[in-house]
C-alpha cells in the first residue's frame, strides 16, 4: 500500500496501463511533457515517450474524433478533456460516434478501447466554466459508460477497469478532491467493477445516495444525522451508466427513505432518473417522498458558490425532513 492523493492514483493507473500494454495512448491539451494542468499525466512522457503520452492541438472535437479513430483501430485511447465544461465541442463525437460505433456497424467495429478522462465539479472558485457537472447529458446516451470515483482507491481501480472495459467510458474526476482526498492505495494493478454501487456505510433508517465528490458530503451529513440518532445508509453509486438499481432498491426497501444528492442543477439531473426508477421499484415501501438535493437551476455561480453548492448541511436538512415527513 502507498499513500496517494486522487491525482497520484490516476497517474499511477495510467502508468500501470501503459507499462502492461504497449498500445495504450494518453493525450489531450497540455497533457504531454508538462503533465496536464492538474498534473495527472505527469512523468508519462519521460517514461513512455512523446508518441504514447502527448499534447494535442487545442480542439476538443478533434481530440475525441482522433480518439474514436484510434480506438476503432484496436488501440486503447485515453483522451483527457481539460475541464468537463469544455467537453461540448466534442459532444457530437461522443454521443453520435463513440456511443453508436458498435451498434451502427452491427458489431463490425467498436471503440471499446476509448476512455475519456475529464475533471468535473465545483468548490474551487471556478465560476461558470470550470465547475460544471455535465454527467446527465451523457447519461441520456445509450452506449456509453459513465464512471465517477470518490477517492484515490476507487479512482485507480475504476480507471484501470475503464481503460480495459470493452465499451467507451466517460471517466469523470472530482477535481475538488484531486489533492484533498488522500488514502491508502495498493501499488499493484487491481480493477473495480463498473456498474456496482458501493455501500460506504450501512444503516437502517434512511438511504443517502451520491456519486463522485458528493459522497464525502453525504458521509459528513450522515455523521451529523447520527448525532440526532438517525442511522443513515450511505451509498456511492460509482457509475451512473449503467447504474446499480438493484443495490439501491434493496437499500430503500430496507430503509423506506431515499435522499439523492448531486452537484448539477436539479431539473433533468441524474437524481431525477433515480427518483423515478426507485419509486417504481419501491412504491409500497416508501415512508416519505424521494428527496433530491441538487444545485439550483442556474449557471454555476462564482461569488455565491458557497450558497449554491450542495454541502453537508443541505443534505443533513433533507435527511431530517425525510425522517419527519
Amino acid at each position, binding site marked *: 500500500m502507498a499513500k496517494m492523493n486522487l491525482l497520484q492514483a490516476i497517474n499511477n493507473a495510467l502508468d500501470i496501463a501503459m507499462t502492461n500494454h504497449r*498500445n495504450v*495512448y494518453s493525450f489531450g491539451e497540455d497533457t504531454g511533457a508538462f503533465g496536464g494542468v492538474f498534473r495527472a499525466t505527469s512523468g508519462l512522457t519521460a517514461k513512455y515517450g512523446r*508518441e504514447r503520452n502527448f499534447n*494535442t*492541438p487545442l*480542439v476538443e*472535437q*478533434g481530440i*475525441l*474524433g*482522433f*480518439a*474514436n*479513430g*484510434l*480506438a*476503432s*483501430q*484496436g*488501440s486503447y*485511447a485515453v483522451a483527457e478533456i481539460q475541464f468537463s465544461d469544455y467537453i461540448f*465541442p466534442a459532444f*457530437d*463525437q461522443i454521443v*453520435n*460516434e463513440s456511443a*453508436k*460505433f*458498435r*451498434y*451502427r*456497424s*452491427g*458489431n*463490425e*467495429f*467498436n471503440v*471499446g478501447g476509448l476512455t475519456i478522462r475529464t475533471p468535473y465539479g465545483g468548490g474551487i472558485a471556478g465560476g461558470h466554466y470550470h465547475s460544471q457537472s455535465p454527467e446527465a447529458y451523457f447519461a441520456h446516451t*445509450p*452506449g456509453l*459508460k459513465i464512471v465517477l470515483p470518490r477517492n484515490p482507491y476507487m479512482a485507480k481501480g475504476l480507471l484501470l477497469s475503464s481503460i480495459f472495459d*470493452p*465499451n467507451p467510458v466517460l471517466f469523470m474526476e472530482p477535481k475538488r478532491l484531486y489533492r484533498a482526498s488522500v488514502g491508502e492505495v495498493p501499488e499493484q494493478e487491481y480493477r473495480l467493477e463498473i*456498474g456496482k454501487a458501493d455501500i460506504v456505510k450501512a444503516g437502517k433508517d434512511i438511504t443517502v445516495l451520491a456519486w463522485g465528490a458528493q459522497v464525502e458530503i453525504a458521509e459528513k451529513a450522515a455523521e451529523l444525522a447520527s448525532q440526532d440518532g438517525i442511522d443513515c445508509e450511505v451509498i456511492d453509486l460509482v457509475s451512473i451508466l*449503467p447504474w446499480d*438499481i*438493484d443495490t439501491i432498491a434493496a437499500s430503500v426497501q430496507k430503509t423506506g427513505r431515499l435522499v439523492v444528492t448531486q452537484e448539477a442543477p436539479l431539473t433533468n439531473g441524474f437524481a431525477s432518473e433515480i427518483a423515478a426508477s426507485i419509486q417504481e421499484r419501491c412504491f409500497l415501501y416508501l415512508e416519505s417522498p424521494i428527496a433530491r438535493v441538487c444545485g439550483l437551476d442556474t449557471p454555476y455561480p462564482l461569488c455565491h458558490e458557497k450558497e449554491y453548492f450542495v454541502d453537508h448541511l443541505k443534505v443533513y436538512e433533507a435527511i431530517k425532513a425525510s425522517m419527519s415527513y
Partner: protein
Amino acid sequence: MAKDTKHQLDIVSKASFLDASALTIPMLQILKEDGTLHKGAEAPDLDQATALKIFHTMQFIRILDERMIAAQRQGRISFYLSSLGEEAASIGSAAALDSADMIMGQYREQGALAYRGFTIEEFMNQLFSNERDLGKGRQMPVHYGCARLNFMTIASPLATQIPQATGYAYGQKMDQSGTCTICYFGEGAASEGDFHAGLNMAAVFKVPVIFFCRNNGYAISTPSQGEQYVGDGIAPRGVAYGMKTIRVDGNDVLAVYHATQLARKLAVEHNEPVLIEGMSYRLAGHSTSDDPSGYRSRDEEAGWRSKDPLERFQKWLVSQGWLSNDEAVSHYAEQKAMVLEALKAAETIAVPPIDELIEDVYDTPPAQLQQQLQQLKAHIRKYPEAYPKTASRLDQER
C-alpha cells in the same frame, strides 16, 4: 530582406494584404475528355487486369445506383444515395491502395467498397435492412460497413470520419503496419469543424492518411463556389495545414489513380498526410429525397454529362486494345441481370429478429435493457397485428 529570427519571418515595412490569388492550385488531368492522353502525359503504372477491374466496378456501381434509385421510386427501399458521375473518384483512388488500408468514407463511396469485393448480395442485404445485413438492419440504406474488407461503417453525421481517420492512421503508424487510411468527404463537409481538426492533427502528428475530398459542386442544394466557400476550393486548406496537397480531375480515373498511388507512397513510406481534391460533379440529386431541378439547370447538368468518367475511360481502354466496345456492352448487360436478380432475392429476406434490437449497444446487453426487451415482446404478443414484421416470428426465435 531583413529576417525576424524569433519567428523565422521575412520583415517588410509596407503593409500589404494577401488574397486567394497568392496561391492558385492547378488540376492534374492525364486523360482528356475525348479519352486521349494529354500531350506529354504518361499513363500511370496500371496493368490491364487492374484497369479492367476499375472499369467493371465503375459499370457495376452505375447499374446499382440507377437500379436502386428506381427501386426507391417504386417504394421497394426507403432511401438511396447515388454516386452517379463520381465513380472515377472513389474507384480510381481505392484501386491505388492496398487491400489492408482502411477506407473511411462519407456515404458516396460505394464504388470503393465494390472494388474491395463487397458482393452484390451484401449490398442488397444492407439496402433492404434484412437479417443478413452486416449492419443488422440498423442504418438507412447505403450506410455500408465491412471489417473483412477494411471499410469502416458509414455514419450520417458529416466529417466525423475525418479526425477519426487521423486517429486510425496514428494507430497504424504506431503498429508499424505499413498501411494507411484513406478518408473521403465532400466539399460541403469540409466546412465542418471536424475537417479542420482532423487535417491539422494529421499534419501535427505526421500520420499515414490520405484525405480525399470529392468536390462535386453541391452540398444538397448549396452550390460550392460562392455559397459554401469563396476561396480556391478545398486544396489550399491542405497547404495551410502544412500538408502535401494535390488537385486532380475527379472524372479522370487515370489522374485519380496516379495521384492516389503517389499519395500512398508519401503516407506509408514517409508518414506524410496528403490532401487530394478531386474536382467532379454530382450528376444525381443529393439523395432520393431531393429534386435537383429546384436548384440547378438542365443545361448545367448536360454540360457535365459530356465529361462522363466512364465513357472517357472506356475510350482509353479501347485505344489500348484492352477492351472492345462490344465487350463493354455485354459485360454491362451481364452485371445488370445480376443486380436485378440479387434485388429480388434480398427483398424477400426477413428483417432481423427483435432480440437484435438491444444487442451491440454494449458488448453485452445490461440487465435494464434485457428487461425493456421482455416488456416490448410482451406488448408485441398482445398486439401482433400492429407489428407484423416481428410478431409472427417471436416464438420461433432463440
